[in-house]
């Protein structure tokens, strides 16, 4: 097996380059050089006479080793130090654990797997670690030992594959609405109910609704770090990948479309429902939504994945690499939970008891 791989090396010292979000440049940590994406593209185009031309990786020494690889794994040799590296079949960018050489596996980003867009990382690894510490603040039920002694066992900047769906939803809803007024008539109080049949039909456009296309990424985490700001979205270039991991999709756009449809339908219904005003009570009598999709676009979006272990349990956190929104499920100290419950309920019982049971 031979993979086409691409390394971004510093034109000055040949050390590996990495993409730096805050400066939006490729930087060299050894000689402190930095290059814009356009500069690197121009240098590489001149050097290789063709932009994005991949370098063939050195053939693996033992072909038999490949045959013994578990299903779904690929092997390639690092072009910098020659180490043999095994990666998941969905890995599109990685780094050599021995020499730190950032490698883009161009095979994984070719043909139908070539992304249309990329949202570059804006936040650094240090910012991600800092955000996680802030994330612990104010969490009343967080075990003290978890916050104090917990160390992040793994932190990865990952370009996660997403499908971006554009669509137009047409919704049709009918409602039963009612207003009431009251007045006195002799010894009777009269409640007058005015009934209305309300009908709304409307169209709503959706732009780039994201659905993560990797089965390895937890859907709840990927949904919860939204929204992404598409104002910084770029046409795809592998020059944004060095220094980060990247995955290619293993769930195609037809498989993921139902999640986008469900979200668009729900939003359409709630938008139409919000136009029914001026009534005291409104109940939905009928609803129908039809969504027409444009061809889905494939994009790589930036996510910091932070992994910690505590009490033999795994805790996974995800941070939007662009906005810094952090999500993840934290451990709960049941003792603290009971203490808070009792600390509120018992004094209240005493106060109420003093007034009501004396």
């Amino acid at each position: 097996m031979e993979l086409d791989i691409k390394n971004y090396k510093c034109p000055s010292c040949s050390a590996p380059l990495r993409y730096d979000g805050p400066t939006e440049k490729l930087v060299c940590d050894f000689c402190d050089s930095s290059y814009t994406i356009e500069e690197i593209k121009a240098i590489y185009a001149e050097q290789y006479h063709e932009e994005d031309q991949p370098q063939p990786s050195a053939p693996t020494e033992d072909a038999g080793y490949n045959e013994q690889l578990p299903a779904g794994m690929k092997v390639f040799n690092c072009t910098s130090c020659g180490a043999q590296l095994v990666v998941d079949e969905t890995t599109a960018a990685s780094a050599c654990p021995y020499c730190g050489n950032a490698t883009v596996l161009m095979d994984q980003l070719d043909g139908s797997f070539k992304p249309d867009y990329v949202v570059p990382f804006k936040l650094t690894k240090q910012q991600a670690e800092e955000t996680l510490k802030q994330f612990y603040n104010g969490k009343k039920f967080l075990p003290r030992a978890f916050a104090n002694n917990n160390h992040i066992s793994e932190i990865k900047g990952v370009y996660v594959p997403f499908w971006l769906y554009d669509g137009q939803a047409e919704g049709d809803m009918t409602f039963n609405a009612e207003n009431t007024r009251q007045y006195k008539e002799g010894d009777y109080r009269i409640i007058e109910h005015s009934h209305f049949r309300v009908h709304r039909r409307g169209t709503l456009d959706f732009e780039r609704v994201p659905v993560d296309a990797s089965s390895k990424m937890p859907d709840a985490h990927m949904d919860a770090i939204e929204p992404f700001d598409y104002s910084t979205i770029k046409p795809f270039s592998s020059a944004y990948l060095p220094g980060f991991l990247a995955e290619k999709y293993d769930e195609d756009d037809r498989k993921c479309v139902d999640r986008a449809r469900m979200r668009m339908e729900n939003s359409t219904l709630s938008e139409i429902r919000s136009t029914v005003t001026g009534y005291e009570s409104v109940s939905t009598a009928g609803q129908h939504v039809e969504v027409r999709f444009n061809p889905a676009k494939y994009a790589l979006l930036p996510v910091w994945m932070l992994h910690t272990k505590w009490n033999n349990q795994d805790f996974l956190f995800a941070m939007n690499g662009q906005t810094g929104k952090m999500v993840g499920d934290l451990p709960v100290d049941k003792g603290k939970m009971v203490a808070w419950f009792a600390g509120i309920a018992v004094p209240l019982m005493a106060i109420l008891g003093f007034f009501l049971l004396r």
Partner: protein
Amino acid sequence: MLKRIIVFLLILAVALALGLTALAEGPGSGDGSVPDDAVIDMSAASDGGQYETRASGVSPVHIAIVILLPCVIAGIVVGIFYSQMKTAHIKHEAGDYIGHNGLRLSMKSDQFTGKTYDRIYEPRQQQQPGGPGGRPNGPGR
């Protein structure tokens, strides 16, 4: 935000306690009337002092309020704190990705279909001949 909610719930609890106390004391209180279920402690009167009244039993409704209301309020506060611990949730809406044009309505009709009436018998209250402030069906009369 959270602190405001907690303070609000605590104030609500105290206000409820005061309100329920006022209700428990009844409308007859303050006008010298004695509730039907009260006993009169005459021991103080025999010493030349004022006699006192006290309730002969505690209402089960009050016991339920004293136990359940704090539990409900504590449960709400604990529930808010607990929800902060679990932040990874599947999204069910796509409101962040609605286009700039927003919703374009092609049909908007509000059709009146009719009226219905509820009639509730509420006889007018008779004015007490002794002047204002009287309650014809009040307790202790």
